């Protein structure tokens, strides 16, 4: 007796005893005669697909994609630190730097994992990543409120706008780099993928600002530094929505 036959005989015995499973068996019998695919449709699909067949190389592994995205983020951060300077890094106390940069690294890792999972349809989901990422961002926001002092700044808006612009510049550079990786994905949910990519790019901008900006005022950091990350997220979402809308216009529903 093979394993399969053994399983079947066990299932038959179970069916004799279990009323619940017999009812489900009734459901199974109801769907025994399945609808057939119309031959014409099958033929049309086959012709269309075979007519445009080209060899493709499969996506690299999740680990390779993750490494690539995080390396690009590191390159963008390093370029920002080299170009803008690292006055902020010098101002930060060791424990402040440890908390902020650990949370930023965790946020970037989660965002990159979220992006990679969205690129491949049917990927395994063990942890609700979107929730974990939101929690990390909330934690970062709260940590900034707790570990940095409040300082009176007469040029709150002017200084803030300067940081916001720099944050967005580096987010744009990082977003453009990430796009070359992300565009190979499946884009099944473009809005979510756009927002995640925007957030990842925004966190790169945030990191550059933390290295560069010497203002350690909690209001300045939460409004303008975190604000640039939020703007990048919304921009990613808006670009994806715009592309989806354009796609819809170019391929009318009828």
């Amino acid at each position, binding site marked *: 007796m093979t394993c*399969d036959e053994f399983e*079947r005989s066990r*299932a*038959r015995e*179970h*069916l004799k005893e279990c009323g*619940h*499973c*017999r*009812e*489900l*068996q*009734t*459901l*199974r019998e*109801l*769907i025994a*005669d*399945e*609808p*057939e*695919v*119309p031959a014409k*449709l*099958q033929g*049309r*699909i*086959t012709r*269309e*697909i*075979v007519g*445009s*067949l*080209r*060899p*493709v*190389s*499969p*996506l690299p*592994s999740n680990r390779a994609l993750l490494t690539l995205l995080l390396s690009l983020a590191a390159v963008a951060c390093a370029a920002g630190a080299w170009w803008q300077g690292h006055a902020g890094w010098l101002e930060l106390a060791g424990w402040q730097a440890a908390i902020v940069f650990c949370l930023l690294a965790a946020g970037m890792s989660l965002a990159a994992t979220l992006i990679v999972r969205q*690129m*491949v*349809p*049917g*990927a*395994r*989901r*063990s942890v*609700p990543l979107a929730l974990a990422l939101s929690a990390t961002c909330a934690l970062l926001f709260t940590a900034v409120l707790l570990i940095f002092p409040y300082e009176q700044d007469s040029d709150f808006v002017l200084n803030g706008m300067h940081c916001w612009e720099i944050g967005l510049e580096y987010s744009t550079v990082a977003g453009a780099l990430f796009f070359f990786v992300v565009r*190979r*994905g*499946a*884009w*099944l*949910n473009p809005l979510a993928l756009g927002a995640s990519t925007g957030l990842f790019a925004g966190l790169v901008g945030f990191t550059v600002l933390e290295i560069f900006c010497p203002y350690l005022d909690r209001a300045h950091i939460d409004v303008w530094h975190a604000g640039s990350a939020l703007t990048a997220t919304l921009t990613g979402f808006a670009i994806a929505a715009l592309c989806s809308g354009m796609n819809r216009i170019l391929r009318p*529903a*009828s």
Partner: protein
Amino acid sequence: MIDASSASPVRAVDGELDKLMAAYQKADVDGTVALIGAVSPLLYRFFFHQCGNAEDAADLLQDTWLRVHKVRHTYRPGEPVLPWLYAIARHTKVDGYRRKRRILSREKTMDSVPEARVPFEPIPASMPSFDALMSELPQSQREVVTLLKVTGMSLEEVARATSSSIGSVKQKAHRAYERLRRVLAPAVKDNRETRSNDV
């Protein structure tokens, strides 16, 4: 519970699909035709039971294949094919539903009533039809039951296809079975009584 008398057709082709997908990625015509032949009936059934409409199922099947063709490089050899495929099918169905709603919102209502769909298969008099049973379920539970019972996927495969956890799939399936049990109970009872009277 899987049908005790015969193995699911999905399980039978599952091992083969991996090889056929690899052939499809290498632009092998025979492999591609075999893949389309093996997978299209599964997808068609999935859409048919989700929409209850042969025309919509045909449209969605075609759209799904176009998408699959575009993103075929995102399949990695060695990974299970069905969750990958059904994840694409599921998104195509959602997009199709949105598109349909958009079209309906622009259409004007007509005086004449369209003809009702002719049932695809003869239904035993005492039993509710499968479509009628499915219509008793909320959309999320209907999807899970269709994937588990019609396409014969495992819990993990359904979890991957629907982007959710195994626990969530189990919970939805359990709730759906409870509800179906309540709906089916009178029909099963009638059936048993009829059989015992015949004997």
